[in-house]
């Protein structure tokens, strides 16, 4: 070799490894918290099919393309698909979970503010994938 010492490279590699360990540890901790579903979360069954979303609340009411929830409550989505893969996405709440035929995936959230948010499909599912959209309405608690 050219005879120069290699210590700058070792220090650099050490710094990179330390950064990666830090990123990994932070991500691990955050994901662990995010995945912890609160007790008593209300279940909403989400069904994806070409090219719309259907929601079924615990009391049996069904909605198509729209989802009404109440502020301050925790909800757990049980997501599945009737035909091809979709991905259920409420971007404002960083909710993303694939809807896959033959499987039920879960994800939860607890809306904090009243408002309207977009629901969309984020996995390619064919012709009208671009318009497989819906709206989430977060409302004041009824009681």
């Amino acid at each position: 070799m050219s005879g120069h010492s290699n210590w700058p490279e070792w220090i650099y590699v050490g710094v990179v490894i330390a950064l990666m360990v830090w990123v990994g540890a932070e991500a691990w901790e955050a994901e662990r918290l995010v995945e912890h579903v609160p007790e008593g979360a209300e279940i909403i069954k989400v069904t994806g099919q070409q090219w719309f979303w259907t929601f079924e609340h615990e009391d049996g009411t069904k909605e198509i393309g729209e989802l009404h929830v109440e502020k301050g409550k925790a909800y757990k989505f049980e997501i599945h698909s009737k035909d091809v893969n979709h991905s259920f996405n409420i971007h404002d709440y960083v909710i993303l979970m694939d809807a896959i035929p033959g499987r039920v995936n879960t994800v939860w959230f607890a809306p904090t503010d009243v408002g309207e948010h977009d629901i969309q499909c984020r996995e390619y599912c064919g012709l009208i994938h671009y318009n497989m959209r819906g709206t989430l309405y977060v409302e004041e608690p009824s009681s």
Partner: protein
Amino acid sequence: MVLELQKPRPIWQIMFSTHHTDVGLLYLISSLGFLFLGGALALAIRAELFLPGAQIIGDAMTFNRIFTVHGTTLIFLFIIPFASSVGNYFVPIMVRYKDMAYPKLNAIAFWMIPPAGALIWLGFADFTWYATPPYSIISAPGPAADMWIFGLKILGISSVLGAINFIVTILKCKHPDMSIGQVPLLAWSFLSSSLIILVAIPTFAAALLMLLTDRLGVSGFFNPAMGGDPIAYAHLFWFTFHPEVYVLVIPAIGMMYEIIPRFSRKPIYSFNSGIFAFVLLSIVGFSSWAHHMYATGMSFTEKTVFMVGTLAAVPASAMHVFNFIATMWNSRIKFSTPMMWAVGGIALFFSAGAGGVANAAMPLDFSTHDTYWVVGHFHLFVMGTIAFGSIAFLYYMFPYVTGRMYNETMGKIHFVMSFIGTVLVFFTQHVLGLYGMPRRIFDYPPIPEWIAMNQIASVGAMIIGVSMAIFLANMIYSSGKGQLANTEDPFGVGGKYYYPFEAKNPSH
């Protein structure tokens, strides 16, 4: 040796030749042809997304077909064949052998590409380059989908044959006086990427066959209606195609290893760390495939394993960047066109890697996955790193292939425009992804931020398009009428041009 255009030969002598530089030339011309075809599709996509509503592409189906063929073309018909071209020209020379180990196999591997390309282009499938079931089984229209499957099958065989040839040439045909540690880093990059191909490709080859029989209805591997599981396909696909990312990027890094020291007029900072990083990357590249699948409902443990596997690949990539910077440090750099492209490529490689770390971190991935962030991220690799490295090397090998010099000013304009364009398109797409725009959509709602960022990206794409037209003109004009190159030292960096240049007619 090459000098094709100075000593014209009938075209069939090149087409039916098995000489490594002739096969290299065939690879080169066909890969550049597909670069422009695939690039034209990219411009169509960007024009369509300039505003919400249908613009120039009438319907969603056509749009879906266009981005599918765009991706398939540029990955399989530009990047890989371009690397094969460079390997064909220089690997035998670098290991001091007269040709590739198996010249006929080499020609066969090339001649599989045109029929595969024809299948992909004539079919024009719509199920994305990922061909995900069950969409690809129950919903994607035939015969386009079937033609795509056969096209990819043929390209897989071609890659495996090419990989075998490179491995045997480097390990078995290198000059007996040469130890493996003396093989130049460019040849090392082909050794590493070829080994990855041999391990990775068979998995996808199997998945393709299963996909085909599923489409025919005789099996149900990935079809839930017949008891199959689409996630199994995702694992098989990404087990091949995450390592495939390294297959694409490693030769481009190897090309930069050739260029950076030459124009820095200094030996590479650490040859051994280059080799070490290539080998390390080829191994840890296999530990990260399911980071593409966090949102498929993987358990916390699975996600953690694949996050660690992904982050483990970062130090190896970072070592290359360090090696390049340390080589350029305190050196007398000559910023000729190839050097500009290589340095730009390193900068974008670093940016792409940094974005990749964000994707790998589990909670952040749910924000970026399947949005334009991911589109921006991997394009910084395939365009910013791999295409930049490849174009750098194309300028670098231009005097070697043609015996003439390209126009330096046009080359620099090409670089400056492409660099600005790449930053405008793909950095903006990262931000667009954070605003939530999904990938692969033909139309989008008129959200002001989405419109603004799509317009910036589309303008950037048009700048790249213009620069590529300049590039094409430069290549065509200069290969016929450019100044004769000083074959000893075409770039005026002092010292001898690396490659032996004596004219030697193909002997097969």
